């Protein structure tokens, strides 16, 4: 297949993906979005005759606009702009999960510091304040007291960007020192791992320790439903185990089998999963891309025949 890769920075993840694509003999067109222009009916990017484009932009804003433009030209792109739009915004992400009856932490959004403080007080302490956009655990705050809440809200109000005045307040989930990251393609899990830390943030990007995780039926079902809720694609679904004592070690005692899905990521990093599990993650991703391209080709043939 001829596959385009949208990027602005080649991370280990993109390197793994490019290596697997080339190893299988696919024709790869790297598209550095920083160098391209996107008009209303065409682009300087070499997207003609591509069977599929994979969005691997590190920058969320570039990802959202570039995929929207390509979609407008009729260029098949994964993940699609609708999925990106939902996943890039934590408020939209939470709403999509709740609308699909996927268990997700209780959340409120407020637009002023006064209303945000009311939301925080209604959750009680600790609770969590997150930016609506952002990643890798940046600017996440676990709020332990009213004094801390007032200080953090004042700081956020002065940060400048209007998004910092969209206050996303969430219940604190007392997870057992770890959460679960699942890489899934159109709802089918490829690999899963736990991320453990003594810090309340367990992101691998924050140095959380990783270990392979075997999904049970409930987790598998929730991954499928969470994927569908945001429009499908190649996604990183993040779950927390609930109903487990916070100081218990579920690796020893076993989990409760109940989860809450706190986030679905649309430009998912997978190098940590590839290292933590026996799964050849880039190979499985390329399997999925090949199947996607074949489906698109079959659809185009059917359209011509009709």
């Amino acid at each position, binding site marked *: 297949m001829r596959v385009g890769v949208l990027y602005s920075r080649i991370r280990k993840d993109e390197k793994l993906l*490019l290596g697997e694509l080339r190893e299988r003999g696919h024709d790869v067109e790297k598209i550095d979005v920083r160098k391209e222009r996107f008009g209303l009916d065409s682009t300087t990017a070499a997207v003609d005759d591509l069977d599929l484009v994979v969005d691997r932009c590190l920058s*969320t804003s570039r990802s959202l606009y570039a995929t929207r433009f390509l979609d407008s030209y009729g260029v098949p792109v994964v993940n699609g702009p609708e999925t990106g739009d939902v996943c890039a915004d934590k408020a939209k992400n939470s709403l999509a999960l709740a609308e699909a009856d996927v268990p997700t932490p209780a959340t409120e959004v407020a637009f002023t510091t006064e209303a945000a403080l009311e939301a925080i007080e209604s959750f009680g302490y600790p609770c969590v304040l997150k930016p609506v956009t*952002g990643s890798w655990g940046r600017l996440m705050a676990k709020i332990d007291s009213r004094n801390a809440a007032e200080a953090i809200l004042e700081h956020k109000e002065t940060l400048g960007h209007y998004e910092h005045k969209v206050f996303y307040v969430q219940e604190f989930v007392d997870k057992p020192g770890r959460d679960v990251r699942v890489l899934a393609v159109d709802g089918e899990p490829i690999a899963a791992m736990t991320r453990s830390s003594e810090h309340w943030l367990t992101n691998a990007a924050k140095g959380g320790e990783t270990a392979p995780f075997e999904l049970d039926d409930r987790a598998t079902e929730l991954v499928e439903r969470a994927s569908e809720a945001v429009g499908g694609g190649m996604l990183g679904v993040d779950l927390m185990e609930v109903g487990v004592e916070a100081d218990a070690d579920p690796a020893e005692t076993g989990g409760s089998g109940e989860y809450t899905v706190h986030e679905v990521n649309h430009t998912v990093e997978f190098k940590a999963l590839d290292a933590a599990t026996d799964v050849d993650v880039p190979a499985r991703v390329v399997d999925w891309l090949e199947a996607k391209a074949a489906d698109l080709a079959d659809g185009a043939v059917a359209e011509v025949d009709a």
Partner: protein
Amino acid sequence: MTSDTDTLTAEDPITGEEIEIPADVEVGEIIDSPVTGTELEVISLDPVVLDEAPELEEDWGE
């Protein structure tokens, strides 16, 4: 410029020193300068040109 099968040599854009980088680097890839530890971006491969990598921006991530 290829020094052997595993590495390339290039000029560190900050110090001006000649440094060795993996031969399989990609345009757009970020490497750490072996001299300063600074993140460098591979701008081109023929010739090998490096530049200081962009600073982290607020919307970067997953």
